């Protein structure tokens, strides 16, 4: 048996996500953004909705998401992706519109846009990658930075007395009637990634049914920003992020858990 006999569709157990381009990912090795991209693209591919999907890229590490996702995309100003997605979805009401945002983008500068798009119940999917830090600009404190966690702008650790407490955005928006689905996941293991993918799929199904906002948080690592190896950062995430940002559904089919 030679190699060409082995390379057959029925023998294939894994392949590159079809809707990802061949561009080299700009993310640090070990970062969760790449997996979150893959899962989103897999869902769109498997649902056969690429011709009806428009993504909105944020400002943050994933600003270049459109270089990697082989779909139509609009790049939004910092924090404004939900406003941009609102308009796209209103003008293409039968399309699948999603935003892909970091925690600084979604929970600091863009808080108003996030809350109001959620409150209006825009028919969009929000993929919210929470790594507890501003990755792109070099590791500054984010609204989601944990208490005591050092960053370049909280070098002695976040002091919640003067810097506020880490904000739980998904719980916050889940209380708005416009939000139909709010859930929190992670992508650092196969098991978690599979669950996250299911949630993303459900989110896009909700768009098909015109149910309003589906809000999928992905708690992720930022090994560069946290100044750890990828493995250390994943462990740190499990030990510190998950207790504060517990994984699981917060609101399903319009009902709070």
């Amino acid at each position, binding site marked *: 048996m030679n190699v060409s006999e082995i390379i057959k569709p029925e023998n294939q157990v894994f392949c590159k996500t079809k809707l990802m381009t061949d561009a080299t990912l700009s993310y640090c090795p070990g970062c969760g953004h790449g997996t979150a991209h893959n899962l989103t693209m897999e869902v769109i591919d498997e649902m056969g909705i*690429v*011709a*009806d*999907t*428009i993504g*909105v*890229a944020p400002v943050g590490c994933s*600003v*270049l998401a*459109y270089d990697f996702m*082989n*779909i*139509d*995309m*609009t*790049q*939004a*100003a910092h924090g*404004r992706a939900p*406003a*941009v*997605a*609102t*308009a*796209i979805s*209103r*003008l*293409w009401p039968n*399309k699948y519109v999603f935003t892909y945002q970091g925690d600084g983008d979604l929970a600091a500068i863009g808080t*108003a*846009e996030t*809350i*109001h798009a959620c409150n209006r119940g825009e028919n969009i999917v929000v993929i919210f990658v929470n790594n507890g830090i501003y990755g792109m600009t070099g590791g500054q404190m984010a609204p989601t930075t944990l208490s005591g966690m050092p960053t370049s702008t909280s070098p002695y650790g976040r002091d919640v007395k003067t810097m506020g407490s880490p904000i739980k955005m998904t719980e916050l928006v889940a209380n708005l009637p416009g939000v139909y689905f709010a859930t929190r996941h992670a992508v650092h293991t196969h098991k978690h990634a599979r669950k996250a993918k299911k949630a993303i799929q459900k989110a896009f199904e909700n768009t098909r049914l015109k149910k309003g906002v589906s809000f999928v948080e992905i708690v992720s690592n930022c090994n560069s920003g946290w100044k750890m190896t990828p493995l250390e950062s994943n462990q740190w995430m499990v030990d510190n992020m998950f207790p504060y940002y517990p994984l699981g559904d917060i609101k399903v089919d319009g009902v709070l858990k």
Partner: protein
Amino acid sequence: MSELKLMKGNEALAEAAIRAGVDAYFGYPITPQSEVIEHLMAERPEERTGMIVLQAESEIAAINMVYGAASTGKKVMTSSSSPGISLKLEGISYLAGAELPAVIVNVVRGGPGLGTIQPSQADYFQSVKGGGHGDYKLYVLAPASVQEMSDFVEDAFDIAFKYRAPVLILSDGLIGQMMEKVYLKDQQERISDEEVIKKYGGWAVTGKTDRKRNIITSLDLQSEKMEARVHRLLKKYAQMEKEDLRFEKISCDDAEYLFVAYGSSARIAQKAVELARKKGIKAGLLRPITLFPFPKQQLFELADQVKGILSVELNAGQMVEDVRLSVEHKVAVEHFGRTGGIIHTPEEVLEALEEKIIHNERIGDYKTRESSIL
């Protein structure tokens, strides 16, 4: 066919937007332009034409909704007044950078700060000198009547789509609030989704079919690419100057003195021309209809004919700088204008011409000349 109505400038603009087949409007209330969104909401445009009208949570959200809507290839607009436009400037810069067509309306009030709700033209610099960050310009139309508030909506969209660039209608509280008769155009149909895809599918986000994916962005991390983008914009602006400059000359043929004024000030200056001529002073008026492009060449030529120029503006002296640049010191140029929401009278304007230009012995001497600000 057209319909004659008595309307406020703001209402005429809103009605014209529905009739021009605009696809979407996003705005946030602020005096003196709230009638725009109020008229739109009252008219149920979703039923009339399918136009989307949404009251956003802020001007920032509204302009970013405009950005999103414009990226779909559809016709979208927003309106606000000065403080709100300041908030929109980041988004306007993005629209210019990402080369998106959109129409923005500023019904100017007095500033700085919260300022006043009374009319003003103090946003001239902000409108024509960038305002937002980066190397960009806006095509700026300055209506001087309720009729032009209505007509310029369609004109603005023509330019926006011709160049794939944001266009600003720079009005003010006077033109926005006053009532005049206006001929409204007939209802045009909105462009269908299929037509949008056919006409703009080359760049707009419509969903990736078997074509290459479309990306709307203003980001170029490679300097060479960014410079190429800036050069592409500059080419558009040069073409606008060549092909789409608009101005009006009133009593200029035999003029010895010239007023330069736009928008509401042009209406007042036009009356001052009449008063001057009654007195035997041969005055004329050059009214820029576009503030960018600016009638530089026309001013340069008129400078050979007239003895002096008065730039009449409802501000502390902004357009006067461009008038001076245009005439290249061939003739004296002074400014007259009230601020804070006070509207100058034709008599005051004529008086200023006499005092600052005709009888000003120090006019040629830049060292001893009075400051041009009131």
